[in-house]
């Protein structure tokens, strides 16, 4: 869990959320920009998950491992699920769906860092 990666994820998630809301406000469907942003977000999350798992295997132990793993796995699903759910929506609301998913990622990544850095007891 590196803070740099957490910040990068937050920035991309924020951009995706803004792009999503913008397309809803402009009454437009989502475009390639949204899909790329979601892809970059997912890639960052995968890198982050691989690094976290490597650290776990290497012996580092956050105090609440089950919760940590739950967040680690759950956050990976969000951009994918968001894109799948948004793509089949032909109206301007597809952007808001992506914004919701991106917002959740933005919150969860910080919770994940918190869980990682928390000291036991």
């Amino acid at each position, binding site marked *: 869990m590196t803070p740099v990666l957490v910040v990068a994820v937050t920035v991309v998630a924020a951009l995706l959320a803004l792009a999503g809301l913008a397309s809803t406000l402009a009454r437009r469907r989502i475009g390639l920009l949204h899909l790329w942003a979601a892809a970059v977000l997912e890639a960052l999350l995968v890198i982050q998950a691989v690094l976290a798992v490597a650290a776990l295997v290497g012996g580092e132990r956050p105090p609440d491992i*089950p919760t940590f793993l739950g967040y680690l796995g759950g956050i990976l699903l969000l951009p994918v699920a968001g894109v799948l759910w948004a793509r089949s929506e032909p109206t301007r609301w597809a952007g808001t769906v992506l914004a919701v998913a991106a917002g959740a990622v933005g919150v969860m990544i910080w919770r994940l860092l918190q869980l990682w850095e928390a000291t036991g007891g």
Partner: protein
Amino acid sequence: MAEPTDERGSTGTTAGGPGRVLVAVYGIFTLAAGARAAVQLATRFSEAPVAYLLSAFAAVVYGVATVALARGRWRLALAACSVELAGVLAVGTLSLLDRAAFPDETVWSVYGQGYLFIPLVLPVIGLLWLRRSRPGARA
């Protein structure tokens, strides 16, 4: 006026347009509440069985609401959102009155404070949306 009316047929009515956003939010809460309840029940059930069972119940309610909204099951969605509203109000109040019974955060503790009070607002928005997307003649 040859506009097809099938779009607002028996299924999918509640899952289109703004409804799709609602389903997304409900989906995320199903995931969040479900994961949280699973961890609580698996690792420290004996600490607060009632609170953790309520946590699991909340996850089930979110799951039912998500599926019902996504598949256009209007009445089921109405039931789920109503139970959800009652649940968040009841658990929220109980968690304030008897803190000892809720030692650990659940999704509905203090009206969903740990989740930016979204659990309190969500069922209200859900019910408003259901009123708007009510299947008129087909009901």
